[in-house]
């Protein structure tokens, strides 16, 4: 089963992180490196990527002629994806264990960040299932 572990934060949270002392950030990076290595060793690792700063985030809609209409203004409460991990695990419980380890990563002074990690199952191909279900409903 594939799961995505998402680290989300509002803009204010990102600003807080940028203000961490360098020593604390180094410790956090070292933790992330060993976290990633452990996932590779256990064969559960698929991919991980950090995302660019929410300051650069843009929402795009199609204009009347299909041209992009961009908007960079978001409510303060808007959660931005800061980074994600995709893992292939035996059970949801295992995905939660991995997420808990990530949440326990060291923050300022080495104290666990206790950051919330959103865990979602990946179901590429879900569209086909919905169509089958809709067809069933319409036949009734």
């Amino acid at each position, binding site marked *: 089963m594939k799961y995505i572990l998402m680290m989300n934060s509002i803009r204010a949270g990102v600003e807080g992180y940028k203000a961490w002392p360098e020593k604390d950030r180094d410790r956090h990076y070292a933790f*992330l490196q060993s976290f990633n290595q452990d996932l590779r060793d256990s064969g559960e690792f698929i991919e991980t990527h950090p995302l*660019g700063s929410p300051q650069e985030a*843009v929402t795009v*809609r*199609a204009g009347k002629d299909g041209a992009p209409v961009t908007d960079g203004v978001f409510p303060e409460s808007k959660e931005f994806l800061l980074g994600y991990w995709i893992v292939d695990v035996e059970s949801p419980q295992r995905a939660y*264990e991995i*997420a*808990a380890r990530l949440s326990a990563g060291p923050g300022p002074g080495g104290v666990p960040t206790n950051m919330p990690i959103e*865990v979602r199952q990946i179901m590429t191909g879900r569209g086909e299932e*919905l169509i089958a279900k809709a067809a069933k409903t319409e036949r009734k």
Partner: protein
Amino acid sequence: MKYMLLMTGTNSDFQSYANWSKEDLQANMTFMRAFSKELKDAGVYVSTEGLAFPDQAKIVRAGPHGEPITDGVFPESKEFLAGFWVIDVEGPEQAYKIAARLSGAPGPGGRAPGAMPIEVRRVLNGAEEIAR
């Protein structure tokens, strides 16, 4: 430069999507397949994934002994990721053009293009690329 195009929705958006007619779902799927193929043909495709409905979504935190504490209660306004595409393009303008195309995907009863907002974000290769 790699960009991620994120499609998000609230719980009620997911519920209405689940109730689209078969024809509307099929039209949307046909569009999505053509869209992915266009990205591949243009040599900008990196990956795409669809996520399960948010009714199984969990927030996980570490408990006092590092054990997972899960929570599945979210505010109504919570935006859930429905799916994403990662593309490798020349610059942000190209990413925005591709996002606009995705925003024009057909919805229920031929919804007007542009109804769906697509969030566009840079994808970094690793921690070393994060501004420090």
